[in-house]
């Protein structure tokens, strides 16, 4: 999933772009001269020319690890190979002894007679041919601000040309030094600057310490059309501050393409109504949404004990550490959707209030990585540990386990006719089966005046102490079928890939050769069945799984 930057206004030579450039130049000039300059630079630094080039950078969402109204964690990939350039002009002191004297205390200065006589030379430096490629980890927490970290050194190459290009020694020195500085800028100064800025915007205490007014991103009226029955756990909707436009609504700073908004709207409505027409997001894989703690352990056992019930979707259980992944091929082990539907039909045991209280621990992971990059997930799962999170919900979840689950068409498993009749399809948001539970709803804002304002990511509150465990997917009786299934597909694909590798390595052809192997394949078969491949298949499935697993083909 990538961003589409509208770069054209910057490349055309109209008045708005020239105004932008002059504004950017003045901002950059001020920023360069604000901090204390090294003594070798004896004049102000002027930005002579700034051009962002013809091509836009590429920004790709690799993974969204956590998503809530007060926090966000995601991994992005940034790539740039364009023709942007920047020309700076200043004056430098080339006498090293003069620079030395300006830093050493005067009392111990050697006080040279004339050897420190200054020689200032105008210097013009052009930075061009930027090649950037880096992984950005962006963590947002309302309390702690935005943390932006480059996981690697994003600067691949950079060309420095200056007044001293004819002198190879100085040219090399400048190239080295400026590359070092740019690297430092990306890896040290930019994260600090972003963090400080975010603290100033979102942390009133920090802003107060600076004597500023904190910008409170909480909207006065939550755009949550659905009121939860229980007042204490009412979901506080929040416009995602990372995507929210600036305060002056007449100049929206971010505009989303109509096409994407339509697609997101479609997706949100599909979730609200449990419509089977869920639009697919291309190149996106959703990791597991959630699965019940108590029920998931039950699901695990069932998957081992009862391999005959391989039809239908599967439940993935993670231990607290997130290491173990098990799959169960039982329909009844999908507590999430079952719970939701049971609530809506009134057949549930627990009231919404108790349930929402029970869903304190929850962690959502949406993995948008291209499938070829995913290499983790052990096909032979460790011994699963029962999640310790569920206390009040386990009973409810277990009782609701047997309720049917709606099936979305994105998952190519055989149709399950018993699902649809039992699922209520009330389209009004207030009575949506997901309304009392966590939701990730991409929708256009309610306010009709700003149709492009933001995507509202409406989620329930989770206890902040839990969100520190990045791989904890605790069970909860709430779900999102699409994400779950998408993650299943991804897992199946990964497993198959692994098995293929393993098989190639061992030279195993045909049927299973070991006991463990059998188990793995049995698990796999649960996925494979969706494409009509049965238990005990050997090579056929393997071949199918090399490029795109059968479960992946739509």
């Amino acid at each position, binding site marked *: 999933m990538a961003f589409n930057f509208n770069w054209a206004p910057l490349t055309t030579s109209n008045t708005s772009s020239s105004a932008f450039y002059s504004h950017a130049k003045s901002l950059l000039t001020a920023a360069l001269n604000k901090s204390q300059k090294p003594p070798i630079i004896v004049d102000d630094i002027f930005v002579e020319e700034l051009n962002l080039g013809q091509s836009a950078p590429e920004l790709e969402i690799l993974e969204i690890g956590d998503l809530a109204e007060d926090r966000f964690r995601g991994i992005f990939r940034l790539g740039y190979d364009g023709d942007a350039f920047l020309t700076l002009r200043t004056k430098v002191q080339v006498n*090293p*002894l003069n620079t030395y004297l300006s830093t050493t205390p005067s009392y*111990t200065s*050697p006080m*040279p*007679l*004339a050897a420190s*006589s200054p*020689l200032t030379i105008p210097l013009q430096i052009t930075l061009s041919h930027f090649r950037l490629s880096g992984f950005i980890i962006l963590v947002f927490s309302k309390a702690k601000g935005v943390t932006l970290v480059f996981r690697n050194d994003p600067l691949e190459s950079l060309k420095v040309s200056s007044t001293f290009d004819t002198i190879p020694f100085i040219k090399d020195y400048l190239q080295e030094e400026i590359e070092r500085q740019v690297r430092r800028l990306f890896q040290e100064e930019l994260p600090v600057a972003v963090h400080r800025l975010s603290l100033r915007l979102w942390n009133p205490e920090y802003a107060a310490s600076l004597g500023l007014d904190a910008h409170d991103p909480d909207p006065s009226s939550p755009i949550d059309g659905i009121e939860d029955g229980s007042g204490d756990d009412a979901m506080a909707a929040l416009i995602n501050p990372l995507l929210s436009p600036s305060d002056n609504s007449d100049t929206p700073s971010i505009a989303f393409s109509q096409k994407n908004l339509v697609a997101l709207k479609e997706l949100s409505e599909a979730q609200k109504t449990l419509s089977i027409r869920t639009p697919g997001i291309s190149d996106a894989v959703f990791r597991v949404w959630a699965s019940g703690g108590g029920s998931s352990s039950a699901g695990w056992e069932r998957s081992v004990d009862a391999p005959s019930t391989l039809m239908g979707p599967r439940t993935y259980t993670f231990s607290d550490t997130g290491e173990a992944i098990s799959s169960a091929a039982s329909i009844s082990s999908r507590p999430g959707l079952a719970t939701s539907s049971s609530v809506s039909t009134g057949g549930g045991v627990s009231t919404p209030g108790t349930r929402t209280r029970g869903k304190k621990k929850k962690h959502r992971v949406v993995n948008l990585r291209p499938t070829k990059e995913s290499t983790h997930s052990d096909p032979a799962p460790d011994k699963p540990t029962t999640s310790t999170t569920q206390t009040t919900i386990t009973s409810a979840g277990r009782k609701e386990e047997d309720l049917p689950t709606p099936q979305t068409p994105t998952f190519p498993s055989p149709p399950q006719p018993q699902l649809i009749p039992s699922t209520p399809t009330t389209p009004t948001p207030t009575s949506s089966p997901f309304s009392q539970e966590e939701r990730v709803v991409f929708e256009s804002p309610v306010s009709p005046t700003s149709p492009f304002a933001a995507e509202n990511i409406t989620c329930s509150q989770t206890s902040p102490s839990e969100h520190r465990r990045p791989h904890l997917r605790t069970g909860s009786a709430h779900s999102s079928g699409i994400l779950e299934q998408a993650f299943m597909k991804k897992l199946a694909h990964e497993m198959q890939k692994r098995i293929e590798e393993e098989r190639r390595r061992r030279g195993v052809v045909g049927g299973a050769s070991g006991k463990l192997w059998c188990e793995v394949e049995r698990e796999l078969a649960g996925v494979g069945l969706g494409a009509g491949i049965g238990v005990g298949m050997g090579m056929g499935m393997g071949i199918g799984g090399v490029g795109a697993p059968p479960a992946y083909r739509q």
Partner: protein
Amino acid sequence: MLTYMDYLQNAFYRATSWDPDNSYVNLTATARALLDFPTPRGLKMDLSSLSTPKFGTSYSLSNLGVVDGSVSYLYSSLPLHNVHRSEEVDLHDVTMGYRQLEELRSPDNERFWEVWKGGVRVDGRNTLLFGRMYLPASTLEALYLRRMKPTTQFRITGVSDGRLKSGGTIMAMMQHDFGKWSGEYLYSTDGALIGARGLYNFGRDPRKQPNPPPRTSDEKAVGRFSMGAEFYYGILNKSAGMSTGLRYTTLPTHPNAPTTMTLTLTPLMGSLSATYAIKAGEAASFCSRFDFNMYSYESDLSLGCEVWRREDVEKEDFAGVLKARVSQTSGIGLLWEGRLKHLLFSLGAGIDLRRKDQLVRAVGLELQYSS
């Protein structure tokens, strides 16, 4: 105006017959005194005393935005009897002006320094210790000066400051003065800088000829031509610097007005500086300097003068001196130094004509009292 501690240090030089003018560093001392004099900023008060001939103290308080001060102590192993109080000190000793060089004198014979008592040599080497603490910045400056031989002086200066890299800096310098030539070798811990500089005087060697020279007008030297060079190399930052210089100055025996001309050259940086200073009578000196850089074509012309005001025409007593300088780059500087009752004062201002909004850059008044 010199601080009291600098005045005491000069007194120590005089008492130990060390000539600081015979050094490459002071090749352009006259031009610096007339063109680069510092103007005081803010209000500063010095309270000093030489409580014993060997021990001096000085307290200083300045108000430049914030109030800060310094406490200084000085110890000299040689009693300084040539130090005067502020009400009777010669203003020429505490202000920097035209530097009239004297005839070179031969260094003392080492034997004259020996003191024997009962068959045992009891003489010591004269030492000066000095420390100054700046408050509240907690910067400490220290000086150790040892007159090792008639031709040699050893000098260590140090600064301790927590804001400096590695907490401080120490510079050690060995100085030789043989009259005919002098040399200095230094090492600084800041950047591991080593340096050497030397000055050679053409003409008569004071060590070889009888002193004073023959008084016949033909052989009498009326001027001195000197040449020197300096070289520095920072070991850690691998940077070097050097310069060479020439000076011609008239001696007191010269029939015309005293004149000093210097030419310094920094070959690596391509800069060249020529000065010309003349003392037009007892009460006025003028100086000009032309700087030029042959790489950047930057140039500067500076003009300066000092005019003494007589208190009493008959008594040859001076009440004050007005210094003025004008330069293309640093603007106009004005300084009036003098004595008011028991106080020495120094009133100055810096004016930058290029900046209309902030014409007067720095105004200051410095007061000194010593007893």
